[in-house]
């Protein structure tokens, strides 16, 4: 079992393609990775300091620990559905592993360990850094810092174990469906519903709305208590950090550790007993025996299309039939943007009940062009979670290499690969524009915002695909791992942060909102023109690393 686990880990680490530039290229990659990681860490430090200060001001300091744990726990649970499904059931290595004399228990164990370890990178940024900042700001004792790495290590165990068990049970039945994309969609939907049921049955109401309704704003640290009440599953781990100086902390940590251990053992035992029946189904070539008349080729089966249309259709079909890509590139950006719009409008309406006009307050607090810059920045935040273009090449696996052989100019192919990203980011930015219009009631400014954000997004799409082409990840085991362990995403985050800083600073520098938008649109048009020229003239060089 140990050797299998170690092979799976080594395979993952060594998948990076050998750089053509040799040692100097690797050093450069390492340096740019360090810059990107450092920038993200700096952002997390800034955000953590700001939130901790604000919570201190209203006497809710402890809530920071609970909020961060809740956020991490939520991300782990949601992400682990995709991850478990892909790693356990739709991973390329299963075709080899299932044919070898290895017990299913060992395969399950190695894969679950791999999933747990793969979460640590995200936790370092999302959990360890904020906790260290909090510890420094609140003068926490050394014991607090001892708990952080231990919690980081065990936090992903329960989310991954629970979701993996649920998925194994579901896959036991859904894998009978021949269409594998359908299996994934159905399994994901059932898993989300079941997960919601399981979590709400063991974790109180688990509702953010109830949290705000029940929170006694006047009582010290009542928010921390209310978060614990709403999400009971997290109480032991919250207590271990909040009561780090007492035995209560030790007791709570041990309790969570034991719960994690039990869930892990339970996951391994349960999943191994039903694993083969689910996994074998996903690796078998499910050729449908079609009725003769369905198989018969007719002239209607061959529709002629202009090659541009055919290319775009191919891009869309490949995305739509890959559940992970479809969710990450189309559904999530859209749902996130319009979900945020709905929450924002609800908050405005809620505040009106207390005769507090949020629109006016926003306009008073932020100057006109700073407000415009802030909204433009928000469009970039939504755009940041849209992975369409950062994986536009990598998602095609090795066919991406073959695309260099077809007689369509590479620069043209590059532009055609961006249309899904352009469209989905345009739709998500509309949610921000609607809110901006309701706030300012200026149709012209709203139109300016649409144009500026679209122009910025189009430019960003090109930057993203250039990042993908610089280091394409075309040798992947499964869709989710390709997305999650794609270091190119870090560069994308760095780029977006840079753009946000520029649009905000520009808002401060240019007080007149009309001039702000006109100059911004003009600048965006120029940089788009420049990058188009660059792509057109250097397309062969841009695609050089794709081989």
């Amino acid at each position, binding site marked *: 079992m140990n050797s299998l686990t170690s092979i799976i880990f080594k395979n993952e680490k060594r998948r990076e393609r050998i750089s053509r530039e040799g040692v100097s290229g690797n050093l450069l990659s390492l340096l740019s990775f360090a810059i990107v990681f450092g920038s993200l860490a700096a952002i997390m430090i800034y955000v953590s300091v700001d939130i901790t200060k604000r919570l201190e001001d209203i006497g809710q300091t402890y809530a920071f620990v609970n909020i961060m744990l809740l956020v991490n726990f939520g991300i782990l649970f949601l992400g682990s559905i995709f991850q478990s499904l892909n790693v356990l059931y739709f991973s390329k290595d299963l075709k080899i592993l299932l044919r070898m004399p290895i017990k299913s228990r060992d395969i399950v164990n190695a894969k679950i360990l791999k999933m747990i370890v793969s979460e640590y990178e995200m936790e370092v940024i999302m959990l360890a850094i904020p906790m260290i900042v909090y510890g420094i700001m609140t003068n926490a004792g050394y014991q607090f810092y001892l708990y952080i790495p231990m919690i980081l290590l065990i936090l992903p165990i329960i989310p991954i174990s629970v979701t993996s068990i649920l998925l194994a049970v579901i896959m036991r039945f859904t894998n009978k469906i021949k269409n594998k994309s359908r299996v994934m969609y159905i399994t994901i939907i059932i898993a989300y519903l079941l997960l919601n049921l399981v979590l709400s049955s063991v974790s109180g109401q688990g509702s953010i709305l109830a949290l705000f309704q029940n929170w006694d704003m006047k009582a010290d640290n009542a928010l921390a208590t209310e978060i614990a009440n709403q999400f009971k599953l997290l109480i032991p781990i919250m207590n271990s950090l909040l009561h780090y100086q007492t035995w209560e902390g030790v007791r709570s940590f041990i309790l969570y550790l034991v719960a994690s251990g039990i869930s892990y053992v339970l996951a391994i035992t349960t999943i191994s007993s039903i694993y083969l029946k689910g996994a074998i189904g996903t690796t078998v070539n499910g050729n449908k025996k079609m009725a003769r008349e369905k198989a018969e080729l007719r002239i209607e089966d061959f529709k002629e299309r202009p090659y541009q249309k055919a290319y775009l259709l191919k891009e869309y079909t490949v995305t739509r039939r890959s559940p992970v890509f479809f969710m990450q590139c189309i559904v999530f950006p859209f749902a996130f943007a319009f979900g945020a719009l709905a929450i924002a409008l609800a908050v405005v309406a809620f505040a009106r009940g207390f005769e507090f006009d949020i629109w006016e307050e926003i306009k008073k607090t932020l100057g006109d062009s700073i407000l415009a810059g802030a909204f433009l920045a928000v469009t970039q935040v939504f755009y940041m979670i849209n992975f369409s273009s950062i994986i536009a090449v990598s998602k095609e696996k090795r066919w991406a290499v073959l695309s260099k052989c077809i007689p369509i*100019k590479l620069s043209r192919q590059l532009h055609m690969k961006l249309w899904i990203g352009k469209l989905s980011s345009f739709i998500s930015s509309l949610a921000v524009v609607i809110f901006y219009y309701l706030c300012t009631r200026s149709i012209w400014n709203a139109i300016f915002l649409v144009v500026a954000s679209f122009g910025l997004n189009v430019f960003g799409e090109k930057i993203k695909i250039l990042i993908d082409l610089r280091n394409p990840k075309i040798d992947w085991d499964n869709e989710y791992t390709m997305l999650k362990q794609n270091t190119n995403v870090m560069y994308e985050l760095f780029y977006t942060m840079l753009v946000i800083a520029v649009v905000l600073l520009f808002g401060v520098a240019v007080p007149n909102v009309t001039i702000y938008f006109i100059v911004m649109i003009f600048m965006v048009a120029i940089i788009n023109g420049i990058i188009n020229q660059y792509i057109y003239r250097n397309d062969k060089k841009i695609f050089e690393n794709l081989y």
Partner: protein
Amino acid sequence: MIEIKEVTQSYVKGKNVIENMSLKVEDGVVFGFLGPNGAGKTTTIDMITGIVKIDQGDIFIDGKSITKYPMAAKSRFGFVPDSPDVFEKLTGLEYLNFIGDVYGVDAKTRLERTSKLAKEFGMYENLKDRIQSYSHGMKQKLLIISVLLHNPKNWILDEPMTGLDPQTSHTLKELMKQHAAQGNTVFFSTHVLEVAEKICDKIAIIDCGKIIFVGTIDELHQKLNSTESLEESFLKMIGGNEE
């Protein structure tokens, strides 16, 4: 016609994978490209097809430079790679339609050629299934059909027999011979020397990035004063080169 002119290629600076290679593949021949593993066969094919940048020299497809006029050159060949990686989420038919649209094949021709080739390759009843459900050999067959669909003058095939069943392998060999007999070019790499012996009009042997022999199989035997099989001659040639 495929012409490679003084081509050098290196993935890492100072370490040439292909060194000053020149080769001319005339029209009307089936040309076999032989060599041991790691000799540079796939890299050469990747350069011919525009996948890998050429560091020095140039390659011409029917007189069109792949570096200067890539679109004109690419529209003149069809390529079957050594590993059949196609869009797994598309159906075989969707993939063929995509290729038909890219190369401008009209619907009637698509129907005729697809029906004929799919029947010959035993793929007719699978074309409406997703490619992800295909076996390795079926994916290989689909890629071959997709190349033959737009019927390019030059066929370039990297290890095309890998994963094919005997019947399909036989059909492909016949198609290769027919295509060359019509005055077109078939350039393919292979490890299977029996295949080369049976169908090649000419062969080139590559070792350590250098062409060490170009000519007919008879010429190879003459050069080595050998009356043995191609396999024996090939091993002598490679062995001699190593010494």
